[in-house]
């Protein structure tokens, strides 16, 4: 009798474990992006929003830039010219009326707090106009 009860308990345990495993597996599949795309496609619905969430995760444009920046940064550091210092070349030349250049930054003559770092205090104000 005791052995019979123990076997039943083991069977119940095995059954419960199997059920939970299948449920967990289904939940994993159901929450995956691949399931969303397959489900939407099977129902003939628009998958653009689903696809865009996948595109969001992978941004080719910014990846392309950051990869180039990394390699450029490595190369320039070898030449003693780091990204943080900025660079000023002829194409970025600054006119005399546009402020003083500090490592490629334009610094305001009056309001600047730290001219070496090229920043001043922001004020939640800006200006738009045809340029």
């Amino acid at each position, binding site marked *: 009798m005791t052995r019979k009860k123990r076997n039943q308990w083991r069977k119940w345990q095995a059954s419960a474990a199997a059920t939970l495993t299948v449920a967990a597996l289904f939940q994993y599949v159901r929450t995956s992006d691949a399931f969303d795309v397959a489900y939407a496609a099977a129902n003939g619905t628009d998958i653009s929003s689903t696809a865009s969430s996948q595109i969001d995760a992978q941004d080719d444009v910014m990846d392309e830039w950051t990869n180039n920046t990394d390699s450029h940064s490595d190369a320039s550091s070898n030449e003693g010219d780091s990204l943080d210092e900025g660079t000023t070349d002829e194409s970025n030349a600054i006119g005399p009326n546009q402020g003083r250049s500090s490592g490629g930054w334009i610094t305001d003559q009056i309001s600047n707090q730290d001219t070496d770092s090229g920043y*001043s205090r922001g004020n*939640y104000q800006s200006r*738009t106009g045809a340029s």
Partner: protein
Amino acid sequence: MSRTEQVSRLLKFRFRAMSTDVEVQLAAGREEAEHAAALVKNWFEAQEQRFSRFVADSELNRLNRCTGWMPISAAMDEVLSLAYGYIGQTEGIFQPGISQALRASGYDVSFEQLQQRELLQSGTERRLDIQQSNITDMLRDQYDYSRPRWIQREGSRMVHKDPGTELDLGGIVKGWAVERIADWVQRTLHIPAGLINAGGDIQAWGTTLHPMWSVQVTDPYQEERNLIGNIQLRKGAVATSGIVRRQWQNTDGSHSHHLIDPRTMEPADTDVLQCTVLGQHASQCEIIAKTVCILGSADAVGWLNRHYDRHDVLWMTRDGSTYFRGNTDTLAERWPGFDPDHRFSLV
């Protein structure tokens, strides 16, 4: 200084790129803000090298020289795809295939060089060495301005231009670059509030402890002066376009400007001096502002209505009148101080 105090502190950086001033305001600690601003600067310099028609070896110039299929970067692919869409949205008024017309009208070097050239040479000595006949040929050759002059192969980043087409992406790249890097700084560097302004094309997000971003609008007649009134926004985009700032004198004494009307392939004959657009995306605002300038007041209202456009659009005309087309219910809240002479509600 606590983290909250650091974040609420706003730091401003300025540099020169894409022939314009770029301003970056970031709510972050000093080191974080400096690092982010250096990356923003690098981003603009990289895009200038890629998209400028005044950089000999830019990707755009290589594309313009290419006669067959050409592999392009992800950035070029995205900008061309966007431009493709905007050609449809603007009914062809935004048309990147105007490079030759721009050169023919005298805009054959960067605007900074153009200004220097005007100073060095008197207006009568200026030489326009571009054959006007090329443009005439384009018009005679049943040129359909309302369709893109290139095709992209889906999924492969390959592009093919129509024979003889030269693209100029100056009308879209600045707004796109602003919008893209603002989104990246916000999303990737987790900077809670900031504003990026490239020559008047602005993308702003978050205000931390401050209620609103405030944007002044330049007086088209006097660059140092602002119009009375300002724009208030928590997040979103503002862009301005106009014909006064980038104009020059021709040999016959007439004035040209950089906004080419693709219907005539000449600088637009328009009553609009300057147009400012408030919306969500800098590139879209930039395109709408340019389109309104090229179309002129009467056609612009019709175009905006036909497309059920939801942006707030404010423009000034040669006779000094101000027009507003947009959400008139929120005009006083979003555009405090402005009192347009003509108002058109959304349809």
